[in-house]
C-alpha cells in the first residue's frame, strides 16, 4: 500500500514540475512574440516615413535620382516581405537601411535642404526610428536567446520536446555595407 502512495506522490510531484516548466516556457515564448511585434511596429513606421521624406527631398535633390529610386525600391521590396520569416525579412530591411544611409549621406551637399525645418523634423524621426528598430531587434534577439536556451537545456528541453515548442529565429539585419565594412585595427 505504501508503495502505491509513494508512486502516486512521485507522479504528482513530476506533474507539478511539468506544469511549472510548461508555464514558464509559454511565458518566454510570449515575450519573444511580443518583442517581434515591437520590431514590426517600428518597421511599419519607417515605411510610412519614407514617402514623406521623398516628398520633402524631391524639390532639392535634382541630381540624386538613382539614390532616391534605390530607397523607394528597397522600401517597397521590404514592405512586400512583411509576412516573411525573420531571416529573409532581415535581409530586405538591411538593404533599406543602407539605401537610406546613402541618401542621408548626400544631404551634406545640399545646404538649403539641411536648413529646411520639415526635413530636420523628419531627420530626427528617421534617426530615432532606426534606433528603435535596432533596440527592438536587440531586445527580440535577447528574448530569443533566452527562450532557445530554455528549450535546449535540461530539464525544460524534455517538456519543450513533448509539447512541441520550436526554437525562435534570430533577426539579423545584414546589409551589404555592414558585412563589407573594413576592420580597423591599430596594432
Amino acid at each position, binding site marked *: 500500500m505504501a508503495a502505491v502512495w509513494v508512486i502516486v506522490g512521485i507522479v504528482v510531484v513530476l506533474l507539478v514540475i511539468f506544469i511549472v516548466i510548461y508555464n514558464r516556457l509559454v511565458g518566454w515564448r510570449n*515575450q519573444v512574440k511580443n*518583442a517581434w511585434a*515591437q520590431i514590426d511596429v*517600428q518597421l511599419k513606421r519607417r515605411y510610412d516615413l519614407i514617402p514623406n521624406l521623398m516628398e520633402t527631398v524631391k524639390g532639392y535633390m535634382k541630381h540624386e535620382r538613382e539614390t532616391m529610386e534605390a530607397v523607394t525600391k528597397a522600401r517597397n521590396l521590404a514592405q512586400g516581405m512583411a509576412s516573411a520569416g525573420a531571416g529573409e525579412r532581415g535581409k530586405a530591411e538591411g538593404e533599406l537601411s543602407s539605401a*537610406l*544611409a546613402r541618401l*542621408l*549621406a548626400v*544631404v551634406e551637399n545640399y545646404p538649403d535642404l539641411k536648413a529646411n525645418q520639415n526635413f530636420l*523634423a523628419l*531627420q*530626427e*524621426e*528617421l*534617426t*530615432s526610428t*532606426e*534606433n*528603435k*528598430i*535596432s*533596440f*527592438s531587434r*536587440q*531586445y527580440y534577439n*535577447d*528574448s530569443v*536567446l*533566452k527562450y532557445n536556451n530554455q528549450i535546449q537545456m535540461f530539464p525544460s528541453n524534455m517538456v519543450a520536446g513533448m509539447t512541441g515548442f520550436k526554437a525562435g529565429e534570430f533577426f539579423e539585419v545584414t546589409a551589404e555595407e555592414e558585412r563589407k565594412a573594413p576592420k580597423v585595427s591599430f596594432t
Partner: protein
Amino acid sequence: MWEQIRSNQTRSMVLVIGMGLLLLLIGYILGLAFFDNAIGGLVIAFIVWWVMSLLAYFQGDSILLGLAGARKISHDDNPRLYNIVEEMKIASGLEKVPDIYIIDDPAPNAFAVGRNPDKAAVAVTSGLLQKLSRDELQGVIGHEIAHIRNRDVLLMAIASVMLGTIVILAWYASRFMLFGGMGRSRSSSSSGGGGGAQIIVLVAAIVLMILAPIMAQLIYFAISRKREYMADASSALYTRYPEGLASALEKIAASTGQLKSANQATAPMYIMNPFRKEKRPASNLTSTHPPISERIRILRSMGGASFADYEQVYQQVHGTGKGVIPASALALSHPAGLRAAGAGAATKEPDRIERARQTSDLMWRLGNYKTITCDCGTRLRVPPKFKESTVRCPHCGRINPV
C-alpha cells in the same frame, strides 16, 4: 528579467525591514521614556509610518515632481528627448512609455519616479538637454529607465519615507525632552522606587535618538548605492554603449551649479547627488551615490555590454570577489557586444548651440510665452499676460501682430 527584479527585491527588503525595525524600536523606547507606555509609543510610530507610506505610495510621484517644479512635455515639445525615452523603453522591454517631465534648471540632472512601471515618469533638467549629445542622453535615460524597470523607485520612496519618519520622531522626541519632560517626572513620581531602570531607559532613548537617524541614513545609502551600480550596468546593457553614460556622468560631474529644487530626502533619486559644494565639481565623497570617478572608470573599462562584463570590471576596480549584480541576473546574462558611437544615426545631430536654442525655446513655450519673429530677425517673447493685439519691436520699431 523578472528573476533579477525579484532578487533585487529580496535583498533590499531585508534592508527595508531593518529600517522598519529600527523605527519600531525608536517608538518603543520613546514610549517607555516619555509616556511610561511602550505599546503607546510603538503604536504612534507605526501609525506615523503607515500614513506617510500611504501618502508616498499614492501621491509620492506628484509631490516629488511638484517639489522639483517639473512640467510634463509631449512628443512635439522636444522630439529628441521623447524619442530617446521611447528608444530606451523599447530596449528595456518596458510595456509603457513613462511620462516625461522637464525641470527648468541649468544644473544637469535627472530622476525617475513612479510606484510601478505602468505609472512611472522620468524628469530631466533643461541643463541636461543643453549639455548632452544624443548618445549621452541615451545613457542617462537608460539609467533612469533601469530604475523604473528594476522597481527601484518604489523601494527608494518607501525607504526615504521611513528615513523621514525616523528623523521626525527623533526630532520631536528631542524637543519633547528639552522643553517638556513632564511625562517622565509624572511617571517617576508614580512608580516611586524604579529610578535606576528609569535612567537606563532614558539614556537608551537619548543614544537611540542620536544614532537612529544616522543608522537609518546609512541603510538608506547602502540601498541607494547598490541600485546606482545596477542601473549603470542596465543602462550599458540597453544602450550597448557604456561610453555614452560615462561621458554624460563626466559632464554632469564637471558642472558646478547646484540644483535649486532638490532637498535631502529627494537627493538619492537623482542620477548624481545634487548636493555637492557649490562652485565645486562633484567629489568622490558624495554618500548617496557611489564615487563618480569609479562609476565612470567601470563603464569605460567594460569589454562588452553584458551584466557579466560589468560585474567583472567592478570586481577588478574594487579588488574583491564580491560583486554588485545579483547572482540570478548574472545567471541569465548573455554576451552582448558594444556598438559604435552614434550607431543608427545616419546624420549629424544638432550641436551645442542648436541644443541650447531648442531648449530655451521649449522653456519659453512651456511658460506659455508666444514667440514672434520680427522681419528684422529679432525674436520677441510675448508673456501670457500680454493683452494687446500688436507689439512693437524694440529693435527696429516695426509693429507686429500678436
